[in-house]
């Protein structure tokens, strides 16, 4: 069998009114960054931030506010460099717990979502408890968990996990249930098994939803880890950034407190950007959210 004589691809494309034939053929360059666009995009927030920092420094200097009430940004930066030896190991501890919690939340969250979509009964029976875990403030249950679980890192991990897993569960469940009905019909028509429908249709359909949930969970895992560290308040070599903040507060080392805070915020931003990049990388070929509008 060959093609219909009257139809060559080029003509077919022209006749069906393709505007983006070139786009379909030209090799895509995913990593080409439009510098002008990036600068225009990044400049306004950078200007605002710089102005805020200058104003902060000026307010501190002009009013001669003592450093133990409010340190200026320059002093915070100097402290960050000076105390790097103490703060950096703590950052690693906090990040390790955050990362582990996010990993466990992702695995458990996806598995729970899959369980939910296997049967309506399972979802109806268990979903309310997922909600209860989510709405109970972590500060309120963290002391209990720390009492029950002797191993402090494990206790912290559980706390961070509790905060982080819900967005993944709720988003992935929604995604798994959002498969196109016509595609489901098509699968049925070709005699697809439940397993095939899951792998070929439900899982890819859920991907954008899952990645959206993951982006929220990344930030929440960090918050969960920090909150749990605050509650645990453990000292020693195994202490995270939250303990450094507590410690600095007790000893009136306010600049160091700000430096630790800066590190936590920086980590949060980094996690968000990394997960956004991951999401873009996975979806850029097909999902509307990752496609730049043309024309």
């Amino acid at each position: 069998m060959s093609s219909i004589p009257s139809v060559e691809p080029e003509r077919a494309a022209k006749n069906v009114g393709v505007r983006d034939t070139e786009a379909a053929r030209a090799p895509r360059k995913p990593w080409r960054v439009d510098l002008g666009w990036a600068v225009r995009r990044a400049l306004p927030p950078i200007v605002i931030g710089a102005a805020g920092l200058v104003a902060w420094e000026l307010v501190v200097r002009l009013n001669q506010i003592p450093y133990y009430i409010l340190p200026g940004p320059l002093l915070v930066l100097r402290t960050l460099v000076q105390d790097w030896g103490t703060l950096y190991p703590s950052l690693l501890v906090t990040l390790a717990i955050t990362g582990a919690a996010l990993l466990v939340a992702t695995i458990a969250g996806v598995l729970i979502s899959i369980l939910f979509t296997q049967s309506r009964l399972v979802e109806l029976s268990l979903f309310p408890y997922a909600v209860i875990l989510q709405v109970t403030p972590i500060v309120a249950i963290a002391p209990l968990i720390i009492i029950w679980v002797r191993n402090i890192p494990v206790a912290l991990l559980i706390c961070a996990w509790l905060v982080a897993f819900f967005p993944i569960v709720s988003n992935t469940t929604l995604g798994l249930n959002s498969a196109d009905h016509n595609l489901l019909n098509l699968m049925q028509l070709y005699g697809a098994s439940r397993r095939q429908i899951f792998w070929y249709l439900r899982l890819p359909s859920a991907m954008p939803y899952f990645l959206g949930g993951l982006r929220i969970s990344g930030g929440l895992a960090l918050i969960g880890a920090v909150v749990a560290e605050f509650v645990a308040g453990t000292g020693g070599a195994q202490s995270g950034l939250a303990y450094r903040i507590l410690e600095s507060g007790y000893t009136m080392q306010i600049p160091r407190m700000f430096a630790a805070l800066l590190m936590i915020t920086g980590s949060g931003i980094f996690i968000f950007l990394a997960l956004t990049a991951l999401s873009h990388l996975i979806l850029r070929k097909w999902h509307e959210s990752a496609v730049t509008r043309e024309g």
Partner: protein
Amino acid sequence: MSRAVVQLQNVDKVYGNGVVALRHLDLDVGEGEFLSLLGPSGCGKSTVLRLVAGLGEVSGGRIEWPGGNGRKGLPQGDVGFVFQEPTLMPWATVFKNVQLPLRLRGVPPDEAAARVREAIAMVGLDGFERAYPRELSGGMKMRVSIARALVTHPRLLLLDEPFASLDEITRFKLDNDLLALWAKQRWTVVFVTHSVYESVYLSTRIAVMTARPGRTASDVPIEAPSPRDDAFRTSTLYNDYCRLVSARLAEATRA
């Protein structure tokens, strides 16, 4: 008429919400014919296709497959279905989309690849194997959808208003290509449409349906030479048939 591929006898279809879509519908689909189901919107044309495809159960009457023993006797994939919308997987390339029915049936990748390429070539999309659906125009997406229906070499091709959402120029082009493919392959085609002109142009027979609850009101064989081309669209014969079918459709809708 030649041997029937599928026969609908006295078929009723009542949906769960109480809507009676079909009542006492009789329809024979002969081997190798291009049958159009023509009727007003909501008359149950699509329901007929879905029942034939096995995407729903009849509420009364029966569907017979003289070639096999019941629908279950019909080999999987002997029926190809093209939906109103292209219904493509947005995360998969044209190649992967067309390959889907073969993957579901466990056809080995090597054998599948050749058949996928053949189907893509048949609809005139060679060179677009690695494109994603969002990069294609509406007409091209529909072509992909048709290629996916053809890849299993179906004996019966069901099309549910496939070109309804396309512009006229694109639709004419796809009509012509579909006719050319049919002339060459001679599958049996059931084509659902609400366009008198499209049905006359394409079909060897038109079953005109009544308004809901749907049943076949009249049967109009279109005795025009095949292959047909754009000249046929402007011929007296075509116009006469359009007038006749329009009148039948008006009767059926009124009745």
